[in-house]
């Protein structure tokens, strides 16, 4: 059993100032997951008549991208390649103090406590993260030969679950890794070619319009990403964007 001190960000409304509150988390089983630990703490808060700590979660197995906790200053905790819901309490020691904050970015307004509004990412996808096909007579995808390295690269990029940890980890709240993963995923495939230029321009412009910061090549995003999406995709997006905007502006 672990006895912990939690320093949790509490904020009643989006307008509220918000502040850190301290909670004692006593007798937490080591086999509990991080979210189960919060469930236990919340039950005790409810029993004593308080307002539970609000946080996002859904699948609790690392595939949906809903959970979004910054644990001791690192989105999804310092463990590599996992989401908040995959963090286990056995990684902590008795007597630890754990800081729990929301995924912070100016473009991610806090809705309540640890829940932030990540719809800016949806709008980036809506701007160009798709391909146009005629559904009535769509060709069988497998009839198009795709080189293995391209298929692999597209698949690696497609592993992005849209959680926003890259943005929360970035010193500038830049959305480059997320946007690059989405641009790369389709840009590597033959089906994505006809709209390749249009896509990168539209998605980067939406990214800028949402008020995300600019990349300074520090690669905090890659280190925080639960799917270990590579910053190679950012280099590729820089290249694609440069070519597309020069074509658009000068040709």
């Amino acid at each position, binding site marked *: 059993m672990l006895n912990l001190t939690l320093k949790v960000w509490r904020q009643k409304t989006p307008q509220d100032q918000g502040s850190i509150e301290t909670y004692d988390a006593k007798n937490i089983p080591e086999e509990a997951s991080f979210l189960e630990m919060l469930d236990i703490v919340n039950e005790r808060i409810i029993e004593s008549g308080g307002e539970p700590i609000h946080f996002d979660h859904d699948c609790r197995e690392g595939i949906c991208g809903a959970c979004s906790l910054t644990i001791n200053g690192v989105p999804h905790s310092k463990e590599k390649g996992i989401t908040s819901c995959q963090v286990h309490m056995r990684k902590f020691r008795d007597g630890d103090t754990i800081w729990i904050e929301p995924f912070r970015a100016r473009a991610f307004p806090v809705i309540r406590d640890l829940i932030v509004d990540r719809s800016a990412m949806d709008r980036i996808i809506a701007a160009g993260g798709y391909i146009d096909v005629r559904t009535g007579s769509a060709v069988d995808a497998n009839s198009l030969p795709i080189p293995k390295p391209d298929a692999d690269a597209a698949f690696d990029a497609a592993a992005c679950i849209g959680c926003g940890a890259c943005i929360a980890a970035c010193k500038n709240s830049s959305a480059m890794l997320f946007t690059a993963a989405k641009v790369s995923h389709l840009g590597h495939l033959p089906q994505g070619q006809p709209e390749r230029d249009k896509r990168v321009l539209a998605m980067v412009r939406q990214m800028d319009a949402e008020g995300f910061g600019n990349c300074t090549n520090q690669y905090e995003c890659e280190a925080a990403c639960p799917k270990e999406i590579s910053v190679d995709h950012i*280099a590729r997006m820089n290249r694609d964007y440069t070519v597309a905007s020069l074509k658009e502006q000068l040709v």
Partner: protein
Amino acid sequence: MNASTCSLCTIWNSSIGKKLLVALTGLVLVLFLAGHLAGNLLIFVGEEAFNEYAEMLHTMLHGAGVWIARAVLLTCLVIHVVATISLTRLNRAASPKYVHEQTIQASKSSRIMIWSGLTILAFVIFHLLHFTVRVDSGLAEIAKTNPHKMVIVGFSNGLVVLFYAIAMTLLCSHLSHGVASIFQTLGLRSKKSAPLIEKLSKGYALVIWLGFLSIPLAIYFFKFGR
């Protein structure tokens, strides 16, 4: 100006476009530094070699060469500074602070780019007034006949040497992140080439630091040429 007449505005106003200008102007400055260092090191070859080199700079293309170089470098520096200050301000506005701040793996150098940059800017202004405009009339007099002696006299001042050393150290820090960054911003970095780019960047920064520092240190502490 409408959109079609201002292609550059569109590039300037986008995050990636502005970063591209930072990388390209940074690249020009990086290449200039290598040439500048190579020329300066002629001071160790001898007074004659150094003065001939200074003479050559001022007479190439009938005297126009040095002005073309100055114009290009100044333009690059201005674009670099204006763009990076703008990017830094946008980035600060975009990113609220955590109460419990943590860095996973970003280097110290990468986190102080604006401060190393602004120190370099202060240094460049001082350096130009010192050795190019020559606001010190005594030094200006010496420079007319003997640029080699101007350098020796210029670096006999402890405060000048101290400021020079601080600026070169921060320049080294700026370059250790900056040179590698150029590759990523231009889209030329990948997992395979990353370790090589990292070594190139740190190696280049080290050569620049040692090279530029060797001159004032030799003059001030080892009485070279004095």
